[in-house]
């Protein structure tokens, strides 16, 4: 039971008008949570409970702390006096203006009650509206302060109010230094902690602390990275802005203040000092961190280029790397940073990329995964980059190198030993060799080969030519006209033994070896390049001769086969 009323207050009419104005300056009626929690933190609380309940058609929202509370003097001289605060200019407090408490009237509650105690006094204040209050001395002492707002609403409205309340409290208070808990007692749910670690999405790359200030910095791929400003963990402002390209941050500082309207951080000397710290960290500390991060990522990408998260993490750091590599001089100063991944190898630096581009005649190779071609390039000392965001950047930074996908631009079939073939296929290959020899030996060697490897650009071809077996070939090399081999170095022909066309010919070879070999070699000749139109007349006769020799050879082989078949 309350003791007889100690005091009844009524605000003067001019003050009432001012209060009405102040009440309406809060953009959201639920902003009262932030104001009350701020007061609780300033009251040296270790724990703040936000509770909701629904009784008799009314929602009751409560904010209770275990802080130092208020005595009669503080209530009369500060709580109920506008623009008067016990926290004037106190850098250890968040509140400054002495108007936070009136925010409780923004959602037009039926009643606001305050329970508080200090110095052996215990009080209850009843506010039917912002226009007047009743103050009661209470017999029982208590710890801290509890503020309760009561407002009539339907149960459905209450559900929405509860969800919005939790979202609001989380937004404003997630990084608070003080532990904050939320409980909707009507829903029967447990008390949930509101606090979240002071981290950035995707983890911070740098954490900085000095007395009163904590900063977390991270890299961002967004054109307007995230930034958050907090005072003792209470949100002053969160948003997207390009303070520093490629850099997201959160800063929690007791020196930062909110504006009177609470929707922004006050851009005063302390703000400028805070931003100067961030700029200093971005210039002096973050490049080191970036290098370490990229080296680690580049090593991981080199080992596992298929891991999707790694290039994303690398890309998140790219805008900041671009900033550091933006000028020739700054690139040169960091040209020894081995931060670019290499397929199956150690990361390389920009200087090494320059050297590789020179050695590769202006070409910079990349590929989705390691394969025969990339390994062969590696043996030649040409690094192949995994596919990723670094490829285009490196092409630009290395003076406009031509980018080529290694397995798309080059090919490398693996020659097979005859012993690796089955007897049918071996017979077919031998027939081909014999017919080619009979018809002028266009090819130096006819070899079975495996064309199938990751990224292979020749898996659909039934043969390719090269100077020597196992040598890298280039897709861009023009085919050599089949009729022009006379007087030139003869090439090796490598046959794709898994190609469906060759498999079918292999089966035909069992019945009609001559026809099968003829069809194969004829197709190879046709595929092996056209006679330039200007020389068409000159070689027309030769083409017919070659065709005739192939046919004669085929006929001989098939007749022999038929004869042997007849005998058996």
């Amino acid at each position, binding site marked *: 039971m309350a003791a007889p009323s100690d005091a009844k207050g009524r605000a003067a009419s001019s003050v009432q008008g001012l209060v009405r104005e102040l009440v309406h300056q809060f953009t959201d009626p639920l902003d009262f949570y932030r104001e009350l929690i701020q007061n609780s933190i300033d*009251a*040296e*609380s*270790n*724990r703040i409970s936000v509770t909701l309940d629904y009784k008799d058609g009314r929602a009751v929202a409560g904010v209770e702390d*275990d*802080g*130092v509370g208020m005595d009669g*003097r503080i209530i009369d001289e500060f709580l109920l006096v506008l623009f008067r605060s016990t926290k*004037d*200019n*106190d*850098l*250890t407090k968040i509140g400054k203006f002495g108007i936070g408490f009136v925010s409780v009237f923004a959602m037009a509650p039926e009643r606001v009650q305050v329970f508080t105690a200090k*110095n*052996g006094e215990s009080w209850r204040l009843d506010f039917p509206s912002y226009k007047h209050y009743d103050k009661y001395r209470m017999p029982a*002492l*208590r*710890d*801290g302060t509890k503020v309760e707002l009561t407002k009539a609403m339907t149960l459905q409205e209450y559900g929405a109010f509860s969800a919005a309340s939790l979202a609001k409290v989380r937004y404003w208070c997630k990084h608070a230094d003080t*532990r904050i808990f939320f409980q909707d007692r009507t829903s029967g749910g447990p008390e949930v902690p509101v606090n979240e670690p002071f981290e950035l999405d995707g983890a911070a790359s740098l954490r900085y602390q*000095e*007395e*009163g200030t904590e900063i977390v910095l991270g890299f961002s791929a967004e054109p307007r990275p995230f930034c958050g400003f907090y005072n003792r963990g209470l949100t002053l402002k969160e948003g997207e802005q390009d303070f520093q390209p490629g850099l997201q941050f959160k800063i929690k500082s*007791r*020196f930062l203040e909110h504006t009177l309207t609470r929707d922004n951080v006050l851009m005063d000397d*302390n703000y400028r*000092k805070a931003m100067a710290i961030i700029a200093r960290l971005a210039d002096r500390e973050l490049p080191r961190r970036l290098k370490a991060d990229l080296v680690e990522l580049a090593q991981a990408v080199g080992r596992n280029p298929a891991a999707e998260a790694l290039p994303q993490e690398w890309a998140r750091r790219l805008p900041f790397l671009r900033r550091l590599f933006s000028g020739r001089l700054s690139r040169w100063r960091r040209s020894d940073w081995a931060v670019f991944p290499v397929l199956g190898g150690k990361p390389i630096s920009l200087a090494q990329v320059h050297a590789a581009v020179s050695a590769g005649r202006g070409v910079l190779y990349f590929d989705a995964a390691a394969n025969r071609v990339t390994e062969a390039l590696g043996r030649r000392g040409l690094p192949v980059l995994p596919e990723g965001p670094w490829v285009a950047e490196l092409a630009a930074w290395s003076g406009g190198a031509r980018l080529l996908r290694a397995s798309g631009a080059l090919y490398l079939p693996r020659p097979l030993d005859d012993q690796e073939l089955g007897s049918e296929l071996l017979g077919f290959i031998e027939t081909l060799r014999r017919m080619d020899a009979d018809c002028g030996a266009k090819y130096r060697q006819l070899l079975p080969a495996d064309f199938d490897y990751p990224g292979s650009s020749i898996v659909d071809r039934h043969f390719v030519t090269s100077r020597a077996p196992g040598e890298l070939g280039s897709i861009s090399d023009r085919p050599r006209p089949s009729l022009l081999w006379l007087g030139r170095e003869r090439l090796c022909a490598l046959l794709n033994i898994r190609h469906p066309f060759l498999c079918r010919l292999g089966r035909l070879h069992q019945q009609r070896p001559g026809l099968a070999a003829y069809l194969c070699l004829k197709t190879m000749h046709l595929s092996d390049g056209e006679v330039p139109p200007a020389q068409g007349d000159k070689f027309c006769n030769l083409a017919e001769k070659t065709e005739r020799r192939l046919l004669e050879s085929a006929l001989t082989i098939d007749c022999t086969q038929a004869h042997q078949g007849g005998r058996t």
Partner: protein
Amino acid sequence: MRPEAKAPERSRPLRGADLEALVQTAARLVLAGRLSRYYPDPYGAAEYLRALAPSARGGVSDQAVLDLATGLPGLKDLVAIQADRAISADFIRQSADREASGAALSQRLQDKLAYYRRLAAVDLPPLTRLELKLRRVDPERGAAFFEAVFDRYDAAEPGFVRYTLNLEQKDRGWGRAFLKRSGDYPRQTAEFRARIEKVAQDDSELAFLLMGQVEGVRVEEVTRGRIGPLWSPWAPAPAGWLPPGAFALHLPLDQASVNLAADRDNDPFATIYRRFLSSESRSLVEAAAAGLGYRVQKDRKFACSAGAAASLRQRLDSGGTRSLVYEAS
């Protein structure tokens, strides 16, 4: 020849289930006590106590030495927890290396690893910490206002203690500054640290008086908050205060402040320092207090185990104090 008197027992080792019950209950009571920031960090204190539980220590130790005056573990046991925390990262890394090399961890090592992992994950504040904050600068008065928070675990009377001091320093004192600052950033001087450690030995009034002697410094407020003593079956309450087997944690708070209108003593187990003195000494201290302009208040609240609140409240009421009593579930 007179028989030699047996010295009263000052401490006793506690192990196994007894230690488990003591530290787990103590941790619960600390958190039930609704402590403001004028008290030592309740969450940190609870973590230290829980870390001493044999169930948590993974076989590293199952013993602590209980100080019978305060009913709490001695400083040595808490320092051991800190030392374990300091080596936890190395132990975790070595265990991971061992597992990576294919060596199986014995059950004993696995238990130990779980202890170190938990210790590495919890927020364990230092046992001794001095924090200095600039509150504001008043150019008109030519003064800066500071808040100093000094935490320690009392070695003589084991228990967590926090001193919070609000101090004003005049600009002219900065030639030989007791408190230094650069812009908004205060810096602790060696003299300041030494002084704080010297004055933070007794109650807030004594600390106020001693700190008030520093030239160029005006003390506004000194608050001392404590966690302890703890009444338990092993360090029992005086007869009649608690039912058998119950626990009660004392949470005293005393403050000397220029912002207090009058002295107030609401602590059933302590007296305002000046009232404790002889009339001759008291007049000297009264004069000093008048000069410094402070008043003193003393409070003590309690957190007790379930079923103990009624008897505790009854004794407190009969003693004429209005102490808060929280009953932990």
